[in-house]
């Protein structure tokens, strides 16, 4: 009867929480305080953007300014990224009216022409945004929690959406949304993780009865028919996708900590000029985020004064853990591969330091 089930569940040996309630509360206070500051700052910028078309700052990882040139014939021919420069782009109109409180860029293609972001309204994410050469558009995906996950150099956006009680993946290109069908026997959640230059999508699909999902690839050249991968096939396909999906590197909620994807968590170093940092995105060998000085933050709590907070945009080299300040804009989030097939950093021997136990294994080469 019910009591048996209760006893069974109560008897499951569970590890104790690793943090005390006081620690959890302290983190919650810090996070909410920081969120409020960012919200005030970004809300101010957004309202200004909507009202008078003042752009909000995001980052472009390209060495040159975006322009109206068409997409490169071969995405792999993108120029090596030699420098980063902050650039302002406009927000789509009407976001403030829809209750959007935060815009969080989550990806950029290897060429830097395309940037994707998700919008946040409290804990929901109502929309995905794509910028093409700085021109914004809302990705017209129907459903709850529309989230872009990656964009390739051809401008194809891949993401996930919660619809009809399950997570589904989609791709968007040239005004058309294509839902990726779940593989046969996998009617539950499926999530795209990465997209390659050809527009293929690599992801995972849950089965009703197995705890761990299967890995799957949806090939653009095969009308996105899903193909479940064996472990051997999965290894090959992962190499194909390289790190474009950034899925091998992961963030935690803790400031400055990055999951290496190999079972370890490493601490990013705080660069000169700041004494707190917050990582926001990782891809390949690079992580990005922002930071500042505690004294300045605490001296300007909330309100419009928060807009003047001199946030620093930071990029870290995951092979060394060292961070470099890129600029002073109040940017919330940037991300980008910050590398190209021709980049010398990909063939150089990474330097591992004892304090940053990242893997020194370079990623597989693009086919």
């Amino acid at each position: 009867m019910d009591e048996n089930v209760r006893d069974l569940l109560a008897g499951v040996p569970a590890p104790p929480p690793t943090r005390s309630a006081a620690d959890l509360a302290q983190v919650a206070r810090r996070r909410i305080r920081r969120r409020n500051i960012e919200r005030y700052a970004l809300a101010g910028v957004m309202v200004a953007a909507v009202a008078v078309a003042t752009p909000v700052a995001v980052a472009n990882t390209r060495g040159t300014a975006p322009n109206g040139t068409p997409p490169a014939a071969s995405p792999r021919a993108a120029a090596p990224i030699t420098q980063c420069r902050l650039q302002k782009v406009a927000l789509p109109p009407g976001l403030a009216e829809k209750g959007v409180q935060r815009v969080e860029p989550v990806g950029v293609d290897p060429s830097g022409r395309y940037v994707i972001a998700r919008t946040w309204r409290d804990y929901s994410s109502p929309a995905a945004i794509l910028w093409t050469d700085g021109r914004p558009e809302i990705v017209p995906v129907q459903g709850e929690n529309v989230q872009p996950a990656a964009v390739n150099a051809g401008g194809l956006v891949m993401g996930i959406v919660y619809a009809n009680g399950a997570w589904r993946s989609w791709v968007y290109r040239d005004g058309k949304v294509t839902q990726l069908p779940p593989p046969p026997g996998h009617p539950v959640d499926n999530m795209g993780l990465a997209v390659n230059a050809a527009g293929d999508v690599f992801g995972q699909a849950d089965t009703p009865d197995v705890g761990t999902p299967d890995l799957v690839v949806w090939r653009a050249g095969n009308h996105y028919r899903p193909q479940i991968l064996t472990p051997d096939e999965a290894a090959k396909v992962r190499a194909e996708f390289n790190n474009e999906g950034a899925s091998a590197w992961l963030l935690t909620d803790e400031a400055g900590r990055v999951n290496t994807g190999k079972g370890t968590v490493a601490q990013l170093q705080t660069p000169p000029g700041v004494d707190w940092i917050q990582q926001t995105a990782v891809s390949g060998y690079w992580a990005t985020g922002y930071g500042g000085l505690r004294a300045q933050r605490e001296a300007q709590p909330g309100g419009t004064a928060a807009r003047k907070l001199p946030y620093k945009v930071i990029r870290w080299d995951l092979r060394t853990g060292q961070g470099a300040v890129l600029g002073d804009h109040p940017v919330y989030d940037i991300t980008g591969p910050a590398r190209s097939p021709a980049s010398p950093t990909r063939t150089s021997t990474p330097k591992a330091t004892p304090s940053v136990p990242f893997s020194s294994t370079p990623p597989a080469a693009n086919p």
Partner: protein
Amino acid sequence: MRSEDDRAYVEYLSARLPWLHRTAYLLCGDGDRADDVVQMTAIAMYAHWGKVREAENMDAYVHRMLFRSFLRVRRHAWSRVLLLNRLPDRPTGGDGHGVEERDNVLRALEQLPKGQRTVLVLRYFSDLSVEDTAAVLGCSTGTVKSQTTKALANLRNLIGSPDSLRSS
């Protein structure tokens, strides 16, 4: 947050922490992810403490936050990393090695479909009513009932104790 609200928040969190963590662990099957879920829940509670405090059923309200945090952790790239670096485990079937696994309730929970596992945890560990469980999951009470029946049947099969579990 006012100091008295902050104090009440910490008191509630302190009292409920073992229970929240255990619920998260039963949902996730992983201690680290359970920590993440609880941390996210604590943040959400702090952000909406006024609503939590005024909720008719505080525990059910917090459960809703916990469940949403669980979904967020699941779809977060953290879980993707674990999944991508651990190739799918396939069921071993009736090869004789599964006997020990079936004695492990957690293992059995892991093999249940997520919806069934969640319903079991919320109803039988967290003691939520059918109605509260439906509210947490955002589905109908009929779905909760049918998921419960299926979950109990599957759990019975997985742990090999046909007499110890019956659908209520």
